[in-house]
């Protein structure tokens, strides 16, 4: 039995979507690792409120991976790949990274 070979363009689109989803995944993982480093740098006790930026970065990183997976699934099912629909995610990730970086800067300057 032979299976239908998908057109060249279809495969390129699929691989492109996969690369983009992986880029989001790596960014999510990066946020999680940076959040972990923040918590480690803030030191014990780990229930303290000063760990909030680190914990938040880890949570956002995890959420990003889930959202990227859902978006990838939506794009794969879509007949016409969406364009420019990620403005919200881009703005959110940018804002989270800026706020997190600022918190890290404060942590180093205040705590050393």
């Amino acid at each position, binding site marked *: 039995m032979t299976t239908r070979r998908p057109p060249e363009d279809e495969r390129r689109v699929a691989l*492109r*979507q996969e*690369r*983009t989803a992986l*880029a*989001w995944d*790596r*960014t999510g993982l*990066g*946020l999680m*690792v*940076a959040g972990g*480093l*923040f918590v*480690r*740098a803030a030191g014990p006790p780990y229930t303290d409120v000063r760990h909030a930026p680190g914990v938040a970065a880890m949570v956002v990183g995890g959420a990003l991976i889930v959202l990227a997976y859902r978006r990838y699934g939506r794009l794969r099912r879509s007949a016409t*790949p*969406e*364009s*420019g629909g*990620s*403005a*919200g995610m*881009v*703005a959110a*990730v*940018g*804002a989270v*990274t*800026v706020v*997190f*970086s*600022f918190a*890290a*800067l404060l*942590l*180093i*300057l205040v705590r*050393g």
Partner: protein
Amino acid sequence: MTRAFRANGGTRNLTTRTPTKMGPLVLGRRWWSLTPRRDVGHDPDYRFSFANERTFLAWIRTALALVGGGLVVAQLLPDLSPGWARQALGALLVFLGLALAATSVVRWARNEDAMRNDLPLPPPKLPVFMAVGVGVVSAVAVFLLVFGGAR
């Protein structure tokens, strides 16, 4: 208040309200106004949108690596002379990451805006900024190690 948004020569006016005070809501609105308007120009080819998005994400990951590196330097490096040098190095790296993260969003928005309006992409300044920033941090680190020394 009218703010000019430039995309390599192309100028667009974005009308925003003058904020009375700098609350989180105002900051959020300002941040959101950086994202490209979808009512001007046309939707760019999705391949270019994806490529722009992946480039933005690569810059964000670079920023996160710098912030993570700064935290590690401030925490794990042996004490340098003078005593504040370790913190200063860490803070420099984190500041570089902070600036990179903020700039990469603007860069993504300008690229998207240029593509929507069929304009050439704005000249890339981030690689130069990154090279100069990391170069300065490296020079400071070498200077501190050679003339200060680890304690």
